[in-house]
Structure formats: C-alpha cells, structure tokens
C-alpha cells in the first residue's frame, strides 16, 4: 500500500518548484531546476541520479542547511523561510539526523565525543549522553573504536560514526547523503539495518545512493537528472536478508569477523 493513500500519514517534506542557482564567474549554474516533491511521514525514500544531478543540493535544502534560490519548502507544514536561526538550529538538532557525503566529523574529537555532540546541544545530561552514544556506535558495529579520532579511522568507519551521530538523537527525519558510499557489504548491511529498523519504528528516511541494492531498502525511489525529477515510483522494500547483500555478507562474513576483535 502506498504511503500517501494511508489516512494517518501526512507530508513531512513538501518541496514545490525548488530552484537552486549558483553564479559562477558570471555564468548561472542550476543545481536544481524546479523540483517538487512530497514525502509523507514513515516513507523510506531513495534519491538516485548521476553525479552532479543535484541530489546533494536538494538534500541540503531538505536538511535546512541551505536555502533555495526560489520555490517553497515546508517541513512538517512549516515554511522554513519563516523560521529564525534558533528555531532552525532546534530543528536540525532534534528533528533531523543528517549523514553527510563527506562525513563532517570534528577532527579534534574522538568518535564517541562526536556522537555525543548533538546531544550536548540538546542539553542531555552527560551520563545519558555517553550511554546513548555507546549504543549508537555499537549499532553501526564500532563498539571497539569509540575512543579513536577521525584521522585514526578508515573512511568506512568515519562514515559509520557519522551515521551513529545522525541517529543518536532519535530524530523523526533521517537524511543520509550516500551513507554507504565508502562501505563494504558487511558495513553497508549494518548501516542499512539501522535505517531499516528506524523506518520500521515509523521514522522517515531520505537517502541518496548510487547503488540499486541499497535503493532496494526504500519504499520509494526518486530519480534526478540535471536538477529535475525524471522518475518517482513506490516499491515494496526487499527484505535485507533476501537481498544479495545478505549473501555477500555471508561470503565476507569470515574475514569481516576476523577483522573484529
């Protein structure tokens, strides 16, 4: 059943005619050329498209990190242009969990301190912060890397720290820009299982990916080309254990397990 047909679903994200224009040396570069998209609560959306098609641009706008050149964006029914800095930071802190394409961890802080940071801004007491950060890092398979600094970790490990930081506040909207881009199949399954379980709990997930296997987790796939939506269809998510990722996991299992103490 389609999410928009269900009576208890409401549009979390409502983009209408979003245009993002950059001026580069006198030339206009359009990253998006009028994107309209509505995502209902509880959907798991995969955004796909070639490199440079405007996926990250769109994601940054959805995540309230950037503002469109023109067009309207309503988040939970609120036009974000009407919000001030404090309200926006509250939304970024409480409502949204953002996984960046480039991780964006603080290099001067350990993995666990990075994961604790959004909770620090939310005013969570330090004991609880630590406890929840440990849980989030365990769920992405990094129980043994908590005290490591970003430069002491592989790209995949950093990406999983970024995922842990995004999910630790238990946000209702998870936005992930190629969350498995640097991961092997085993780690991809860890991360996608974390997203799938958040989705199962009713969270809304929007994720950018280049991989069809990863997109298979989603209930809806949106394809972009040159800043325009070319395809938007609903699908039944394939269960992680039925996908070939699970087979890959079994194939790699012995070596992956050997790599972990």
């Amino acid at each position, binding site marked *: 059943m389609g999410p928009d047909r269900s009576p208890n679903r409401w549009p979390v994200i409502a983009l209408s005619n979003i245009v993002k224009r950059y001026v580069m040396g006198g030339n206009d570069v359009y990253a998006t050329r009028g994107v309209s998209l509505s995502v209902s609560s509880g959907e798991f959306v995969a955004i796909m498209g070639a490199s440079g098609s405007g996926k990250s641009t769109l994601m*940054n706008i959805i*995540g309230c*990190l*950037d*503002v469109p050149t023109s067009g309207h964006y309503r988040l939970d029914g609120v036009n974000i242009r009407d919000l001030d*800095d*404090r309200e926006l*930071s*509250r939304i*970024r*802190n*409480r409502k949204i969990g*953002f996984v*960046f394409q480039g991780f*964006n*961890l*603080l290099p*001067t802080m350990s993995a666990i301190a990075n994961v604790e*940071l*959004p909770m*620090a*801004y*939310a*005013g969570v007491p330090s004991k609880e912060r630590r406890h929840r950060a440990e849980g989030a890092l365990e769920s992405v398979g990094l129980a043994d890397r908590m005290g490591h600094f970003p430069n002491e970790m592989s790209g995949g490990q950093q990406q999983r720290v970024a995922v842990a*930081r995004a999910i630790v506040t238990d946000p209702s909207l998870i936005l992930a820009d190629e969350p498995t881009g640097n991961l092997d199949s085993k780690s991809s399954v860890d991360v996608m299982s974390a997203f799938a379980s958040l989705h199962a709990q009713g969270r809304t997930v929007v994720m950018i990916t280049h991989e069809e296997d990863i997109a298979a987790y989603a209930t809806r796939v949106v394809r972009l080309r040159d800043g325009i939506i070319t395809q938007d269809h609903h699908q039944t998510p394939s269960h992680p254990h039925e996908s070939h990722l699970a087979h890959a996991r079994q194939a790699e299992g012995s070596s992956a397990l050997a790599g972990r103490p």
Partner: protein
Amino acid sequence: MSILANALMALRGINSNKLRSLLTMLGVLIGVAAVIVLLAVGTGSSQAVANSINRLGTNTLTVFSGGGFGGGTSQAGTQTRNAVLTQTDVTLISDPNSAPDVQSVSPVVTTSETATHQGASATTSVIGSTPSYLPASNYTVQSGRSISSADVKAHALVVDLGSSTASSLFATGSNPLGKQVQLGSSEFTVIGLLASKGSSGLSNGDAVAIAPYTAVQDQLTGESQSFSQLLVQGKSSATLSLAQSEVESILAAQNDTTVTNLPFSVLNQASLLSTATSSSKTFTALLGWVAAVSLLVGAIGVMNIMLVTVTERTREIGIRKAIGAPKSVVLGQFLIEAVVISLLGGVLGVLAGLFVVRFRIDGVQPVLATYSIPLAFGVALLVGVFAGLYPAFRAASLRPIDALRHE
C-alpha cells in the same frame, strides 16, 4: 546549553591548539606587564625627584645675594651700590605686617672649611644661621640640642654636626656631644647631632656644620654686615607665591628698585617642585603611552589569532551548526575562548608586572601605581571581548552549508 558546558567546550578549544593559545596569551601578558612596569617606573622616578626636592626644605624661598639678573647691583638714579642682604631685610621680612605669609626668615652665611678633631678631618660646609634654619631646611636634631637664639645673641662657638661630618670626625661608638671641633682656626663645641637627610643630588646635606651666624661671621667669614642668603619659610606651600611677592617687594623697596630689577635671585622651592613634578608627570605619561602601544599590539595579536582561529575553524562551525548548535552557542564558545585567553594572559601579566616592579630598573626603584592593575587588566579583558566578538559573530552568522563548504 548551559554556560558551564559552553565554557568547557571553549576550554577544549583552547587546549586543542596549545601553542597558538599560548602565543596569544603571551601577547596579552607582555602588554599588561609593560603597562604596570612602565607606569611604576614613571611613578618611582617622579617620587624620587619629589623626594630629593623635599629634602631641600619645603615651603621655602631662598634669596641669594649677588645673584639674579641684576648682576648684584642696582641702579637707583645715578647711584650705584652693591646690593646686599642685611639685618634690616631680615627684620622687615619677619615682620608679620609687611610679610603676613612668611613663617620665619633665617639669615645664612656659608663657608667651606676643613673640620678637624684629634687628627681626623673632613671638608664640611659651615652654615651660620639662626635656630629657624633647621626646621626650614628639614634638619632634625637626633641627639643633643639645636643652636638657640641665646647662642646667636651670645656669639657662642657651638655647632650642630651633620651625620656624615660627625662620622668622619668621630669614631663610631664615641659620643661627640660636648667635644671640641676645629673649624678654620676656631674651636667650636658640638652641642647637637643632626639626623641624616641624604644627599639631594647637588650637595651632600649631611656634610654640614650649623652654627650661630654671629659666631661664623666673627670667626670665619669676617663679614658682619651682610648675609649670603636668606632662607624664608612660608606659612604653607599654597601661599608660598604670596610670600615670595611680599619678600620681593620688601627687598625692592630696600634697594630702591622694582621687583623686576631685583638684584637678588629668589628660588621658590614649591615652583621648583611643581616644575619637576610636571616634567616627571610628562615622563610618566610618555611611558604610559609606550605601554599602551604595547598593549594595543597585544590586542591586535589577540584579534588576529581569533580571526585566524575562526577562519581555520569555519568548517568546524559549519558542522556544529549543522548538528544543531544555535548562533548564540557558537558565539558564546568563541567569545569564552577569547575571554579566557585574555583573562589568563591578563592575570599572568599582572603577576609578571608585580614581580618585575620589585627590582631597580635603570637606577629607579619602581613604585607600583595601584590604578595600573585594574587599568591594564580591564583593557586586556575588553580587548579579549572585542577581539573575540567580531570574528565569532562573523562565523556564527554563516549559513551552515557555506561554513561547511569552506576550505
């Protein structure tokens, strides 16, 4: 987010770049210490100048005969005569009707003699005067007694010895009182010892022998009609210039001339002091400016470091904003960092300044100017806040995505 959590975050920021924080702190430290030390040197040297002038005697005018622009002579009509300071002048100046602002006037005859006692000798300046000379020129009797009016009247051969003259003539431990000291060809009886005054730069105020002027005129100078100086003590330093004009008009009348053509020079101790004080104030102010410049340089250093810090950490600011740090928290973090750095630098600077001030610098014993501590400290703190505010405000106002894209 609480102030405390924010302060902790700021401390972590300082800690994560120790060298840079340390250098910034050093800039503030040097600026603050320089302000304190230089102002203390200025205060110390102006106090030293004031002290040495005060030792000459306070509230006093010295009238020198033969000095002044008149060249020691005065023209009255066709008559020309040598202008001298006489007993009549003394009597007129000490009359409260003609000179109401004069406390006392002491005629002075001076000569330099070799004083001897049982083979020991010392060159000493012999001052012949009246009892009022001692308090007027800040001499105090340590033991024995001062010369008296009776001694003056009786032409008594008695003397009060300055401390260095006494120590040159008498062995330590022996009591000079009542002993005979030979000045020139005459024997004087020591009746008092004067407390040390210290040297006042030009002359050693302790290498003196003070005797009744009548005795000095009789025995040493041979002169009996005139004095080399008059030491006039005013009633207060505030009215000293009034006393000066009274003295000047009396002397002008006595010599049939005008005040401007007075054949004597009148040295006003108070105006000497105020000239010296104002020039040393200028000196202190100059030092203060030098110190202010060094504090300013320190301040620019802090500002520069804060700008670099913020630019360098723009991505960090982007990340913090992207995961929910509001502008105020980012602003607070950088502001607290700047304040902590300048506060620490300020405290260390005050301590360094207090330490350095304990030593003599270029022969000047610095005297801590209390106002310099809150001044330097306040300026350091203010600088920290302003230096931190602008870059922090700039960083905190960035849109997260722009901060994140910053390389």
